[in-house]
């Protein structure tokens, strides 16, 4: 009887651990990409703005992957012979887009919208982590529903001024909590509304 109870509890603990593990969530797992693109180099090293490549982040649901032409604005001039960039040149020549592996992919039944998050002052770093320190791209957060809800139930600690949304190094002022609350006010965030099912599932 005790053994049975212990094995049930053990199963639940192990099962609960597995679904939360990086193995299941793919958090911090570097994904294979056609070209080993370095955000660290392009963001921290060269100082590109997020929106230079992810052009639609402010007005549409998806942030958008850059077309090959965006890469070629520079790489038609520099590193034109680099073997690592061969897939990019091939893509341009044949007119077939690069097939990047989507790192922060949400299930289809989640109607996630980038533009509203940007407009309400959720920084890129909040969900995607310090991409300026990532030589290769990985998921910075588990993307579990409980992670979404943590913020939807209490968004204030994760807000920043709109101007700082694309800032990789912004830190909140000393009284972070009160500051977050003023932002909730300023951006008219209806917190009670954020946990309705239809906010994310239609």
């Amino acid at each position: 009887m005790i053994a049975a109870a212990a094995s049930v509890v053990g199963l639940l603990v192990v099962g609960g651990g597995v679904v939360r593990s990086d193995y299941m969530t793919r958090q911090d797992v570097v994904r294979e990409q056609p070209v080993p693109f370095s955000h660290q180099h392009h963001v921290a090293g060269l100082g590109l703005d997020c929106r230079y490549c992810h052009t639609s982040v402010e007005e549409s649901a998806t942030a958008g992957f850059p077309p090959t032409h965006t890469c070629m604005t520079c790489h038609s001039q520099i590193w034109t012979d680099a073997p690592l960039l061969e897939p990019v040149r091939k893509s341009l020549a044949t007119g077939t887009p690069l097939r990047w592996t989507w790192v922060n992919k949400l299930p289809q039944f989640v109607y996630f919208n980038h533009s509203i998050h940007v407009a309400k002052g959720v920084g890129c770093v909040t969900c995607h982590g310090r991409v300026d320190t990532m030589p290769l791209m990985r998921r910075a957060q588990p993307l579990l529903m409980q992670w979404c809800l943590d913020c939807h139930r209490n968004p204030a600690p994760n807000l920043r001024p709109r101007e700082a949304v694309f800032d990789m190094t912004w830190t909140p002022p000393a009284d972070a909590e009160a500051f977050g609350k003023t932002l909730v006010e300023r951006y008219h965030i209806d917190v009670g509304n954020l946990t309705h099912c239809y906010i994310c599932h239609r």
Partner: protein
Amino acid sequence: MADERSVNPQAPTETLPLQPYGSVSDQIAMIPLHYPLRRRWLIGLAASALFTLLLVVAIGYLFYAGVGIWGINSPVFWGLAIANYVWWIGLGNAGTLISALLLLLSQQWRNSLNRFAEAMTLFAVFCAAMFPIIHLGRPWFFYWLLPYPNVMALWPQFRSPLVWDVFANVIYLLVSIIFFYIGLIPDLATVRDKARGRLGQVFFGVLSLGWRGSAAHWQRWRRTYRICAALAVPLVVSVHSGVAMLFSVGQLAGWQTTIFPPYFVMGAMFSGFGVVAMIAVVLRHTFRLDSLVTTRHLDLLAKVLLASGLITSYGYIMDAFTAWYSGDPFERSTLIDRFTGAYAWSYWSAVILNFVVLQGLWFEAVRRNPVLLFLIGASVTTGMWFERYMLVVTTLYHDFLPSSWGWYVATFWDWSLLAGTIGLFFFLFFLFVRFLPMISMFEVKEVLREERVEARNARSQ
């Protein structure tokens, strides 16, 4: 029942005819050890296995293709699956009632019936438990109904009867299994001791958990058994009230009425006793157990059947009365629609099969006639299925707006689930009569013992 004796001393008053204790064990324990009707058993098992296979195919195809293979569509989103569910879980009610409630009330006559009634309950609840899961759009997420700390940071909606139903059902199934098994232990030990083959000795030896029949064993067993019985009785009420609430909490005409919980519990008991009566008749005939399941047992079963049937018919009348008395046009139109609408056949089938046929049980000759009792039991069981069908479909197919009226026609896959679960029920029951003592030997002997003492006292006076 007690004063029947003083009124008519000539009547066959004993529950059981006097017989040696050994003959009880011989009659019952020998069935699993030296099964008498192997050929017929095999044919029956094979036939029911065929239907069980149909169930497997139906569920497999359902999981592959989704609930679109059923006849359900807007506005009838509950079809045969829910009707079957309510029907099965209702049939399961009688076993616990006979075993637990009558045990606590010291109704000794239950001792010849409780074992197979409990088995019937278990198998019926098992069939019932499938439907809530398979009728989900994504059945592999059935565990979302349970409250557990999940990565979605969500709990089930505790205000919903759907969640209450999950609790009521799971607990009912668990307690039924435990109660059934505890009641079996002393008998399993008897079969173990009588077994000659090594296989039988090991099989029944393991199952009987080292039972030696010492006074300490009996004392603990009795305490456990009665505690389980006391736990099981309220569950009989909660499980079917929960089912009723699935309907009556919804704000739909024909469903939203306060009489539903007691009406459902009584209907469940009614249909369950119908099945128990049928099984009793078949088993006593097949295995010649007339001296253990006597005509007095049949008589008592018939009386309970009659009583619960009359209360259920009261439910029908009050349901109709409330609909009329409410003055609500939607309630009234649903009521009239049940009498005369497209699905009136299901309403009148329920009324005729449940209540018209039942009136035969006012006569003792009918109550004590196995064939007639069997037929009435079958009629009630079928009638209650029609009632479930009527309740589910007639409310849904006429929604509030005529623009959202629709039809429900069950498809082949709907029917194959019903046929399949019936097949599974028989399959499990065939295994049960073959491998386990189908009547509680030691409890029958208790009754015999009491009757002997009484007989001796009567002689010495």
